[in-house]
């Protein structure tokens, strides 16, 4: 595992997320978000504190650098980061022994990886969309946006995950 390539990958995904946030507009029903992928790809040896602080920094950085509301992505990122270890133990490795430093699609297998990515993306988007739309939009819209955004973001996250195997 090359840490430099790992950092570079993080930066690239972050820049891609920045571009998506600022320039990609599919529909009012869809918010494309790949920041959960970065939360998933943080080393498993990291403590929840560290994961939350880094996720908060990533989200805040995205908020500050993009044209959005400051704090929205930070809030959502912490919401997804907080239960990451618990989700990993429940969905991927129940014996509580982290056998890999980073969860990679090729090593973990499609199903557990997909479950983790889906769970993190859903948590992230639930927090993001609720804070963004609360008291302004009808419940049907919020639910529809959440479902559509989760599907699109998870699929995009899976596609990007395929490139991780070459690290």
């Amino acid at each position, binding site marked *: 595992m090359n840490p430099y390539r790992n950092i570079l990958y993080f930066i690239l995904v972050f820049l891609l997320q920045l571009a998506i946030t600022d320039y990609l507009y599919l529909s009012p029903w869809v918010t494309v978000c790949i920041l959960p992928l970065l939360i998933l790809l943080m080393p498993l040896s990291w*403590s929840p504190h560290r994961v939350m602080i880094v996720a908060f920094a990533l989200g805040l950085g995205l908020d500050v650098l993009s044209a959005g*509301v400051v704090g929205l992505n930070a*809030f959502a990122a912490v919401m997804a980061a907080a239960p990451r270890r618990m989700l990993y133990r429940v969905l991927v490795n129940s014996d509580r022994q982290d056998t890999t430093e980073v969860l990679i699609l090729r090593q973990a297998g499609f199903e557990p990886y997909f479950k983790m990515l889906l769970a993190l993306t859903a948590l992230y988007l639930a927090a993001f969309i609720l804070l963004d739309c609360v008291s302004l939009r009808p419940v049907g819209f919020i639910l529809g946006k959440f479902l559509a955004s989760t599907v699109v973001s998870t699929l995009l996250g899976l596609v990007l995950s395929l490139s991780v195997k070459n690290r």
Partner: protein
Amino acid sequence: MNNRSGLLPALTAIILFIVLESLSIVLVMESGVVQRFRIMGALRNTQAWVWTRTSNISHFFQYRTENERLAAENLMLQQQLAEARIALQSVDSCFSDADFSYIGAHVIKNTVNQQRNQLILDRGSRDGVEPGMGVVTPCGAVGIVSAVSPRYCYVISMLGTGQTVSAKLAGSGAFGPMSWPGTDPDQMLLQEIPVHIQAAPGDTVLTSGFSTIFPPDIPLGSVVESKVSKGSSQELTIRLFEEFRALHYVYIVKNNHRQELESLYESVP
């Protein structure tokens, strides 16, 4: 020891989570007026939702108290109405025989699915209840007190075959005995109405007052249909105003001249 060492990181993680999320929300609120109103609006909506629910729950538990308050108020109005009737009759004539007083009571037990139905009320001899008193509601006659204990009384329901109440048609004043045929608890039969009396569906039936048990002019029900019975009188089917299945609060009627009237009847050879 292991529990302690595992608990501390978990606690600090929770605290860190709360701090970071709070900081994010503060940033969102500071980021723009719209977001601030969104969040405060959501908080107000949540508060309103909680208040509405808790208010509904507390209202539910206050229904009993509220019902008792309304029943007491109703009782007071009934007393005032009776006094007003007496006063009016005193003005019109020197004869006054309508002097009823009322005792409010809760229905402890009530049956409607038997041939001789009964009620048990939470008022007894120490409240002034005596056998032979009528039991009414503003929607009709309910029954007659049959037996009394110090705290309770046993009432024979009007929904009993053989029980009758003297009733009259509101328009014509024609009267006759009204009884329950033993089938539908919502309907009774008013008999012995002369055939020349016109009784249309919807006409109101009241207590006649021709007894010492029930006061006059209590609405009982409305005419559903009429048919000639035994060739010389009509038998009217009456739909009752009173819902016997939902009886909760009733009034025991005390005729203050009852002993005088009964002794008068007995003195007549």
